[in-house]
């Protein structure tokens, strides 16, 4: 039995949804409403004490962590592999999935949260969120406490923007040499980046756009024409989930 706990077709939840659709693997969808803070309720914390989606439960085995979950799904269901055969291309997949989680996702979450989500929160919601994080491990609590403050230091915003500018540069560089991120075929690397790129279009529109980053722009358009991606986008229950952000993985604490 395969169950996926996820939120909207957006950052972190969307990637395993695409992979399962690409590989035509049936699964039970468990929608976790982040806007109602369901991820902090005891029932969910029993499954993942970090209070984060996505979570895959496969024959009672709990698999967390977006990037390593994608690899697990591809390893355990070998039909229609999305890991390239060439070892050099495989390295690119290992590189990108790590880079997404370590650098890209935290920076997007930080910028997106402060630009789109935090300003819209009513005091009652903030109070509820403050209360709901008390059962989280200390490092997740710290991320939330920081996020719920009125504002974010300019230096931190600047660091996140610099980090994403560098990431977009890397994307442009990779796509100069090959049609997909890890060589000649579509792979886990592209899947790990779809929603990151869609979100970057919103959070750093001055850095990532059709003119400044044409290769990345064209690659994203190509991804958005895929059936699996469209099937997943059609699952959205809220308008524009690409403009709603939750406090994500923490930014690198020491470089």
């Amino acid at each position, binding site marked *: 039995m395969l169950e996926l706990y996820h939120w909207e077709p957006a950052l972190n939840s969307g990637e395993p949804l695409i992979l399962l659709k690409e590989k035509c693997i049936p699964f039970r969808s468990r929608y976790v409403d982040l806007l109602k803070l369901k991820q902090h309720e005891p029932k969910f914390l029993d499954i993942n004490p970090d209070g984060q989606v996505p979570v895959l439960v496969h024959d009672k085995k709990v698999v967390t962590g977006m990037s390593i979950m994608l690899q*697990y799904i591809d390893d355990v269901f070998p039909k229609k592999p999305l890991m390239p055969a060439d*070892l050099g291309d495989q390295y690119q997949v290992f590189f990108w999935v790590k880079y997404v989680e370590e650098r890209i996702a935290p920076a997007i979450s930080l910028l997106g949260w402060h630009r789109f989500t935090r300003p819209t929160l009513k005091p009652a919601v903030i109070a509820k969120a403050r209360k709901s994080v008390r059962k989280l491990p200390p490092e997740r609590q710290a991320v939330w406490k920081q996020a719920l403050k009125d504002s974010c230091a300019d230096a931190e915003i600047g660091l996140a923007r610099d980090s994403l500018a560098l990431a977009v540069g890397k994307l442009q560089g990779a796509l100069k040499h090959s049609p997909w991120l890890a060589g000649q075929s579509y792979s886990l690397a592209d899947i790990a980046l779809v929603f990151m790129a869609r979100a970057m279009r919103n959070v750093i529109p001055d850095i990532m756009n059709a003119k400044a980053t044409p290769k990345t722009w064209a690659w994203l358009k190509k991804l958005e024409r895929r059936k699996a991606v469209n099937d997943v986008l059609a699952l959205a229950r809220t308008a524009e989930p690409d403009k709603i952000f939750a406090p994500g993985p923490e930014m690198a604490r020491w*470089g």
Partner: protein
Amino acid sequence: MLEVYTWEPNANSGKPLLMLKEKGVDFKYHYVDMGKREHHAPEYLKLNPSGTVPTVVHDGLVLTESSPSLEYLDAAFDGPALRPEDPYLLWRMRKWIRFLDFHYCPSLAMFGGAGASKRMPEQSEEEIEKQVAGIPMPERRWVWGLILAKKVPEAALAESDRRITAGIELFEKALTEYPYLAGPDYSLADIVAMITVYGMPSMRPDEVNDRKTPRLMDWFRRCHARPGTQAAFKLGHGWIADRVAETRKILCIRDLDVA
């Protein structure tokens, strides 16, 4: 042809050294002196524009991210396989590596950075600005700024200390489930962990000892006794030799005649 450009057999720098010695793969070792900031020098940046160590070059393919490069090297070379075949154990291996890379190493590195910071000369803001300007990654630039300005925040250090202690419990717990971190066999998870925490029994003796963490101590003994581990530590230029010797003394592990 396989070449490794790196500093000491320590943390990220040491990952490919420990791994290749474990597999018995020959390689050419180019020492990058981080003390002299050679990893930020123009010549090195031509090879690795991020200015990080290690860089592994295999037949023209340049690998700059240490943990991903370990997975590549394991597939590309003969020798004992260092990744479990079972997909769930493989996930466990990657989960440990992810935890070590994202969470644990930065906490330990912050202590190293704070120590180095105390030894830095007093400098003006302009001088510091000039020195960090050549560091390519924004996050690394920020960290070096803190080190040079002697401004590693106390609160962040305290948080790192808390995380290091909490992590010791996680090690002990994982080792009650299996003899090694990912499962029954020694894997890349143990390699990434070892090269990061190898000195714990001597650096944190109050927390890591036979009474409090018997399973972790047993794991340290098994890991430190491996010929591959000892061969990798021999590659150092002296920076970590005392720490390794002191740790082996505590663990009662004798030196092997390995190269």
